[in-house]
């Protein structure tokens, strides 16, 4: 008997780990989400090692090589050079870290604000709900990009303000999602039971309700990540974001705008980078959705 329970415990060390293992198995059976995951892992690795592997790391700064300007892609400059002779390959890879950082900050900020406000609105209901949801509605009535531009312009140029500006227009989606999920669980007996054993409101909301609605929120975080990067690039494109010479993808596309289509490489390669970033986050998001939220499938 003792032996048997011993083997049982070693076979299933922890049910949480077991659940995770099962999830990983299901995730791996979905080829597209695996592609997304592999691409993202590559992106993250690149972001960290870019300064060490790119041929011209100094081109991320204001380096000028007048003799090499506007060269097409070849064996030396894989992605060609830009109008001041900087290596686009080096600059694109060096921009990866910034793009990831922008995405993380925007998504973390937007999720924190949105989940908190949505959770509070859904849980308490009544006038709190009305107030918070009307504020959310106001944000949702203005097109997100326009509002982000306005907020950023008001705060001033710069990548930090871009992140703040986009996060401020991004949270209403999370608030709406969280509110509806909280509403669906608020009257569940286990929530009432938690109140019954003396748990306070915050504990009920964050310990009991939120873990049960985390899956759709995580899926949305993943899918939104790519779009957040895209939006940041859009602000960079119109010159509100990172200021030169920072290798920001949107700004790089803007630099290449004047030389398009004859010197197509200037805008194309940073554009490809944005595309791959958005695409891999979307694939990952879809994979996570199948994994965590099977009912919402297709």
């Amino acid at each position: 008997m003792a032996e048997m329970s011993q083997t049982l415990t070693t076979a299933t060390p922890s049910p949480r780990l077991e659940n995770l293992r099962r999830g990983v198995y299901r995730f791996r059976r979905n080829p597209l989400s695996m592609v997304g995951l592999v691409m993202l892992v590559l992106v993250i690795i690149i972001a960290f090692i870019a300064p060490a592997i790119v041929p011209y790391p100094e081109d991320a700064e204001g380096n000028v090589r007048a003799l090499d300007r506007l060269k097409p892609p070849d064996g030396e400059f894989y992605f060609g050079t830009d109008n001041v002779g900087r290596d686009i390959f080096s600059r694109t890879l060096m921009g990866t870290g910034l793009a990831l950082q922008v995405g993380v900050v925007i998504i973390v900020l937007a999720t924190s604000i949105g989940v908190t406000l949505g959770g509070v609105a859904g849980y308490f209901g009544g006038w709190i709900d009305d107030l918070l949801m009307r504020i959310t509605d106001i944000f949702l009535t203005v097109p997100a990009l326009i509002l982000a531009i306005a907020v950023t312009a008001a705060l001033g140029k710069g990548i930090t303000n871009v992140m703040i500006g986009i996060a401020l227009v991004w949270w209403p989606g999370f608030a709406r999602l969280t509110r509806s999920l909280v509403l669906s669980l608020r009257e569940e007996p286990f929530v009432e039971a938690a109140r019954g054993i003396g748990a306070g409101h915050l504990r009920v909301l964050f310990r009991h309700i939120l873990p049960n609605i985390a899956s759709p929120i995580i899926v949305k975080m993943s899918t939104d990540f790519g779009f957040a990067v895209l939006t940041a690039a859009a602000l960079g494109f119109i010159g509100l974001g990172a200021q030169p010479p920072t290798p920001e993808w949107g700004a790089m596309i803007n630099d290449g705008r004047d030389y398009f289509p004859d010197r197509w490489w200037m805008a194309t390669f940073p554009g490809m980078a944005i595309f791959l970033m958005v695409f891999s986050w979307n694939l990952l998001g879809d994979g996570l959705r199948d994994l965590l939220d099977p009912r919402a499938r297709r």
Partner: protein
Amino acid sequence: MSSESPLLEVRALSKHFARRGGVFGQRKAIFKAVDEVSFSVPRGKTLGLVGESGSGKTTIGKCALRLVEPTAGQILFDGQDITHISGRDLQRRRSDMQMIYQSPAASLNGRMTVGEIIGEPLWLHEKLSGGQRRDRVMELLHVVGLKSEHYYRFPHEFSGGQQQRVGIARALAVKPKLLILDEPTSALDVSVQAQVLNLLHDLQRQFGLSYLFISHDLSVVRYLCDQVALLYLGKVVEIADVETIFTRPKHPYTQALISAIPEPDPDGGREQILLKGDLNLRAPKQGCPFAPRCHAAKLAQCDTVAPPLVEVEPRHQVACHLHPALSSSRL
């Protein structure tokens, strides 16, 4: 407080829900889910609360716990009025009263392990953590007939009966004096029902618990309860000791319910009373709420005056205009 006073006393408790209707959602009707209900749960005993669905029995239980705010009336626990307490006082009171739910799976947080579920009240009320909490949880697991190895499992890995045991262990963790059992066995298989009922019976004796047992299953009520209150459309129609209810019911509704219990002997010769029509949640505007379905001879005041709950003999209250005549003629 003297041991004679009841543990829980409910006085003229009412809970009304406003039903909105019309295009603009203006107030249209008031639905009296619970209408001036009074009863008490003696210490160490079990009061059964019996009624059809919609009769307000669950609402009464939740009002007693203050999970639902009553519209009117008074709730006294251990002689203290808890109708309007809040904050810390309420939190402290909640460790004296716990609820066991009808659907065991839905009453447990699926993201927490059994150890965390049972350990949470220990943290909240006694700030127990680490090994101490673990030991207490293990103890509670054994008290409700579960095993130590269940500590790390999630609720979905259990059968309904085991889940209900987890719910009971969580309730016991705060050392309550009163358990409100909201149809604790109606979602379970018959064989498991008996096990859970036996467990509840043992726990009552072991810990001196008082139960408010909400049910529609009369055979279960007979097994577990000391007193029974029958509800019809949010009103108490009869309260008495359990044997009195089963042998000498006085209210026509009680009589009909008792007669509907299957007899082991089919030739036993007891006539079944069939009620007219279905339960209509809209009680008549005036008169006895049960009048439209009553099988007994009707008096003129049945349709005009709501019968008050009166004590017809010691520890036996009935709300029926007919009762003096009825008690001798039938059954």
